[in-house]
């Protein structure tokens, strides 16, 4: 599915980055907020695709790990932790540790069994968030009333203004994407692809398949925790539905929409998802039927996803092959 990403896309990536950085200066506030959400969910979907597109593991429990990050952030902030860096570190750490435990169990199974096991464990995390009312606030969620400012040396930046929240999220989304980029281009990234393509052969040549899968699971989980931390800041609360399987299905849908076989596909899928939702809900509240109606032909006829198909067509034209 995924080829090793080459550096040939760098002019496009640069244009994208300049556009994203300039966006708040010419977009209305509503679109800045939408853009922030796209960046968070795009990061979440890309972290999911490290498992799905690169390692071949369809996880239906990533929402649980995002939720661990979100609840860790909400709990620390409501209990008076004033350093945002500490909150961030703890959220990512908590999600990574949870991913280590969940992954330790999940990586033993393949395909549908892996999907079901990750769903089961994710839903167990959901029931903790939903039912442990004293700590998590139960089904109402855990609101955060004051978000500590970002402290950068002598500067203190409040995240209250939409634009500053956007730039904060943009920084972390880009950092997460660069990290993933370096990871999938590294020898470790090649081993992940080998796990997906032929794990028997890989284990015969001496690799510990379970350990490789676990490492991918923990990495994806830590990034899901980062996305959860950002989502908690953005929504000013952590809610149990972030951990529900239907939330875990979102990065799956976004990845399919954009294309699991390309590096940026899941993030493009997230953008398509939110822009489409915004557009469709202006004239009907039945957005799910439209999403389903779009996904069916994508799965049937464009398994490379919308972004993947476009990229493919573009490359073929440039190379002169039909």
């Amino acid at each position: 599915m995924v080829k090793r990403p080459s550096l040939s896309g760098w002019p496009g990536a640069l244009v994208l980055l300049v556009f994203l950085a300039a966006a708040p200066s010419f977009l209305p506030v509503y679109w800045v907020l939408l853009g922030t959400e796209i960046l968070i969910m795009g990061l979440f979907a890309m972290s999911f695709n490290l498992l799905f597109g690169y390692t071949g593991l369809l996880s239906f429990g990533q929402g649980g790990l995002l939720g661990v990050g979100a609840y860790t952030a909400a709990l620390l902030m409501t209990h008076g932790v004033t350093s945002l860096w500490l909150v961030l570190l703890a959220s990512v750490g908590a999600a990574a540790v949870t991913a280590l435990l969940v992954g330790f169990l999940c990586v033993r199974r393949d395909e549908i069994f892996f999907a079901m096991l990750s769903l089961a464990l994710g839903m167990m995390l959901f029931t903790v968030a939903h039912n442990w009312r004293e700590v998590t606030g139960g089904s109402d969620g855990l609101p955060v009333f004051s978000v500590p400012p970002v402290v950068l040396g002598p500067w203190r930046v409040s995240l209250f203004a939409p634009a500053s929240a956007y730039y904060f999220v943009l920084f972390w989304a880009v950092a997460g994407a660069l990290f993933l980029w370096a990871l999938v281009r590294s020898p470790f990234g090649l081993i992940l692809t080998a796990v997906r393509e032929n794990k028997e052969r890989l284990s015969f040549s001496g690799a510990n398949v379970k350990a490789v899968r676990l490492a991918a699971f923990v990495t994806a989980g830590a990034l899901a925790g980062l996305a959860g931390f950002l989502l908690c800041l953005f929504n000013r609360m952590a809610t149990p539905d972030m951990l529900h399987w239907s939330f875990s299905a979102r990065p799956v849908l976004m990845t399919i929409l954009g294309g699991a076989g390309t590096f940026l596909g899941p993030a493009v899928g997230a953008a398509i998802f939110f822009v489409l939702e915004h557009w469709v809900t202006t004239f009907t509240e039945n957005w799910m039927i439209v999403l389903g109606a779009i996904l069916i032909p994508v799965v049937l006829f464009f398994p490379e996803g919308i972004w993947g198909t476009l990229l493919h067509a573009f490359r073929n034209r440039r190379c002169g092959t039909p």
Partner: protein
Amino acid sequence: MESLLTNTLNGLSWGMLLFLISVGLTTIFGVLGVLNFAHGSLFMLGAYGTLTVMHLFPSFWAGVLIAPLATALLGMALEVTLLRRVYGRDVSYQLLLTFAVLLVLDDAVRIIWGPAYHVVDPPALLSGTVPLFAHSYPVYRLFLIAVGPVLGLALWAFFSWTRWGKIIRAAAQDREMAEGVGIRVPLLFTLVFGLGAWLAALGGALAAPHQSVGPAMGERIIIESFIVVVVGGLGSFPGAFAGALVLGLLEAFGTTFAGRVQMALPYLLLALVLLVRPRGLLGREV
């Protein structure tokens, strides 16, 4: 003692409904190799269809007869137009295609029947209660407990002894060989998917007087039936029966005794089975 009996009966009646839904799911998986995410939506269509039929002809039995057949037709149309194209593809794409179908069907239900919850009364013959120690127990639930094994046995006899049953099992075991000996496998797959859809919708029709009919019922039941078929063993027929009983009883007793942990119990069961015995209680070696 009394709560023990009530919980057992509650668990059995719920388990039998779960069985009706899961047996269709497991049959489709066993023969077509597709785990149908939209199965819960077909279940829901059975319930809503019964509701509509009961408005036209004021008879519950007319609903039980007509709604599942209509859903089976819809199911066959889905198989011919969509599912057929992904049989050879990766499991995740099959799962995602049926998930997209779920999104469409669930929202279509919301458009056609609205977001409100509906109550369906059991038919006169099965309404009311029977005395049970100092309390009483609804007749309809006892009826469900009886329906499950009867339908299960009928299906089991169908698959074991009839010509059609044998053909289906042959196609499930080796598709190419079945085609080689002249079985029209594509048609057979359509019919099997129709049978699965019929069973799901029958479960929905029979569930209508047991619980309220609402737009969320499909989403809730699909995960439970996934749990049933995995716990029992994917593709295994007696496994679906065992899995449904275990889950039904676990949920009934969990409500009484487990308090807040109750919600996590089905997932705990699913995770345990997947870790210790991934082929399920009665499944074949994978």
